[in-house]
């Protein structure tokens, strides 16, 4: 299936676009590369903005509405920049029966932030994950990439508040 | 043997269903030859009596007053008819449900009012969180959808009930 129009230039001269462009080119600049390209863009920029979605769609020859449909279907993709720090709470079964619900309630009480939200000061984003596979550490959270096991709500809140 | 006792009740609705009932015209004479109307917004009885055979309920259950009334009606009625779309689906009164009571009242009584805006607190009954169909609150025996149900449908249903037949699905539709 040939691409009907010319490849668009990247939205800016930010070097990170190169990574996205290369990823797409390696996969033939064709529609099936859409999800991989979105992964590349999110990894490079932390989230997917309209520029990124348009660029990826135009390069791969995917209609914009379909790009948007895909980007919003998968919960891994985020269209908004996240806070300075992220706290991912695992809500897998093992964590659930070991108190993940209490952790989320504790975060909401102390920091007024619910899953998929960022605190008002833009400091901390709370996300949930469908099982990190760290069931032996239940309940588990990931704070800025570091997995913490057997989490105590008070300690977690204290750590986040100190950030 | 005394005649069957019929009542009609008006909850949160536009009264259109009652208008449609009046549209039975001369057939009303036939109905009330065979039954007594013991309670209705169309007649002047103060309290809902005991021992009612058939009650047509128009409107959704929207306020604490509606809730109180429908429970009383259910207690004192043998066959309860959900009369028209508001009673059956909550219809137009239900359009407020996604909005929520707080924002709804704010919009109506505060935001759009220039002179002495205030929330009504006396006399008017308190709104329930949602306007619900009658059958979500009490058991309903017969459903008569329609907005409003046509006079023909109402007649067929009453005729069935008064003749001791079980009213079937009466071929009405929501909205019509």
């Amino acid at each position, binding site marked *: 299936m040939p691409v009907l129009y010319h490849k668009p230039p990247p939205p800016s001269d930010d070097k990170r676009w190169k990574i996205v462009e290369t990823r797409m080119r390696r996969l033939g600049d064709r529609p*099936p590369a859409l*999800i991989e390209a979105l992964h590349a863009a999110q990894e490079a920029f932390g989230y997917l903005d309209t520029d990124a979605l348009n660029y990826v769609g135009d390069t791969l020859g995917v209609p914009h509405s379909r790009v948007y449909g895909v980007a919003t*279907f998968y919960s*891994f993709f985020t269209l908004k920049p996240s806070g300075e720090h992220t706290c991912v709470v695992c809500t897998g079964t093992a964590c*659930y029966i070991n108190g993940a619900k209490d952790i989320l309630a504790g975060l909401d009480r102390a920091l007024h932030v619910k899953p998929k939200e960022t605190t008002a000061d833009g400091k901390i984003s709370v996300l949930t994950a*469908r099982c990190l*596979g760290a*069931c032996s550490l239940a309940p*588990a959270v990931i704070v800025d990439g570091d997995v913490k096991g057997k989490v105590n709500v008070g300690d977690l809140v204290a750590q986040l508040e100190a950030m | 043997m005394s005649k069957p006792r019929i009542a009609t009740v008006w909850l949160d609705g536009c009264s259109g269903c009652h208008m449609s009932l009046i549209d039975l015209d001369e057939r009303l004479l036939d109905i009330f030859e065979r039954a007594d109307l013991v309670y209705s917004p169309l007649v002047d009885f103060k309290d809902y009596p005991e021992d009612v055979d058939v009650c047509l309920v128009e409107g959704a259950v929207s306020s604490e007053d509606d809730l109180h009334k429908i429970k009383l009606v259910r207690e004192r009625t043998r066959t309860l008819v959900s009369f028209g779309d508001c009673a059956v689906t909550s219809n137009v009164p239900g359009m407020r449900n996604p909005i929520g009571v707080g924002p709804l009242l704010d919009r109506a009584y505060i935001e759009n009012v220039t002179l002495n805006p205030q929330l009504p607190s006396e006399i008017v009954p308190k709104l329930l969180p949602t306007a619900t169909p009658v059958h979500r609150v009490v058991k309903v025996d017969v459903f008569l959808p329609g907005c409003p149900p046509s006079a023909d449908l109402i007649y067929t249903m009453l005729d069935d009930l008064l003749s001791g037949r079980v009213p079937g699905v009466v071929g009405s539709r929501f909205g019509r």
Partner: protein
Amino acid sequence: MSEMPAAARAVRRRATTEEVHEGPARATAYVCEAASCMSAQAHDITLRLGESAARAGLSDVMVKRVGCLGLCAAGPLVEIAETGRLFDHVRPDDVEGIVGALRKVKPTDTRASQGPFFEKQVRVATENMGRVDPESLDDYVAHGGYEALRTVLSEMTSAEVRDQITQSGLRGRGGAGFPTGLKWTTVAKAQGSQKYVICNADEGDPGAFMDRSVLESDPYRVLEGMTIAAFAVHATEGYVYCRAEYPLAVARLRNAIRMAQRAGWLGTGIADTSFSFDVQVRLGAGAFVCGEETALIASVEGRRGTPRPRPPYPAMQGLWDCPTLINNVETFANVPTILRKGAEWYAGIGLGKSKGTKVFALAGRIVNTGLVEVPMGMTLREVVYDIGGGIIDGRPFKAVQTGGPSGGCIPAEHLDMPLSYESLIEVGSFMGSGGLIVMDDTSCMVDVAKYFQDFCRDESCGKCVPCRVGTTQLWMILDQITRGRATLDDLAQLERLARMIQRMSLCGLGQGAPNPIFSTLRYFRDEYLAHIVDRVCPAGVCTIEPAEVMA
């Protein structure tokens, strides 16, 4: 979730640096570097052990990173290979002690018993786990890796390979247990010049981490299994569809693909034959439904992961409408061993129509949280009590949940039931991918059913009406029950609706969504009634609302 755990970043940086010492060693320390131990700073332990051994002048000691040692609850784990001595919960200041133990290892030492957790297991898919370095192709080959593929390519026809798999009785380890040999034969015989092999590593069941552990611990085995499958079904291209939530597994898998390509185990003309096959990784992006094979295909094709009605089955019309073989990670991981040891050997393990072994992830209120592989037919009691070490704090066992959101809860009365595809279905559950979540008296079964329904409604793709609307309706009723606001009529409606959703939904997600409700109703109806009639939560989990609050 775009954050990558620090452990995975470390692997990515390190990529392929060899930490395996050359030559035979007198003593070897295996350090578990699978995700669970890695999140407990296991890699730091590896580095410290190496330094410490070097400082102590122990030149004949090897410190080796290995995959999952299984006992995840006790990580970080270090095992002395020669004696079998296991160090758990290793902290930096334990390192000197381990070095001391390494110093004392004598050539005459034999492995001592490690207790029932290890002794009662039978390792097939996980035979290399905790033994080989997951980042070293040489180490895999040194442990018998690629022997099977070499034999297959040089001595067998594709029909013979399929026969072996058929005779072994291997069934799909992703959950449904479809006979693997039959699937391979269907794809092999399907018309089409281009065929694909896809490895389903979109392990989505909460509480399941078998596939992750296999990929983290022994990625070459999965690639070898896929390559054998490709030969058997005449495919030339393959994909591993892996969850993006498993960065360590993805990093090791990508590394393994690169190494295998370089060594000629993937690519054109594998092992100097005319057979060609290559593999690419495709990342999932957080959609549970993509574990369903038609949704998975849609996702590999770069689209929204929505399933489509079957037939046509992917075996006839799959990826880009070509015949496509889709098997799960564990299924592929069994293949090399079956071909090396023979179909009869494999068929000799197990019970009835459930042959071989099954990997289970033990989690929940169980002492030995971790990864185990047991022969089919082992009783649930042996798994939970002998291997799993029983319930935390010695509390009473209430139920074990298997099969993820499409599975069910098995009560104590069935503890002596042998584990097999058939027996699990008989008691109203489902094998699923192998997550076993143990619950004690602190879990409310209505709340558990609500948890799974919440999961299903959140993961419903939204394509078909019964699942999109129905899972939320079921959740709403369960929510009312847990608040003490439901009636017996609501309970009747719950059951009616659940049956309808089971029969009318488009894919396995919707069809299976009511299962947790069915099984908890079957065994724990009294808990439902307690919430509805007596308005109490026996486990004390749910918050019952005051009676006067109106619906």
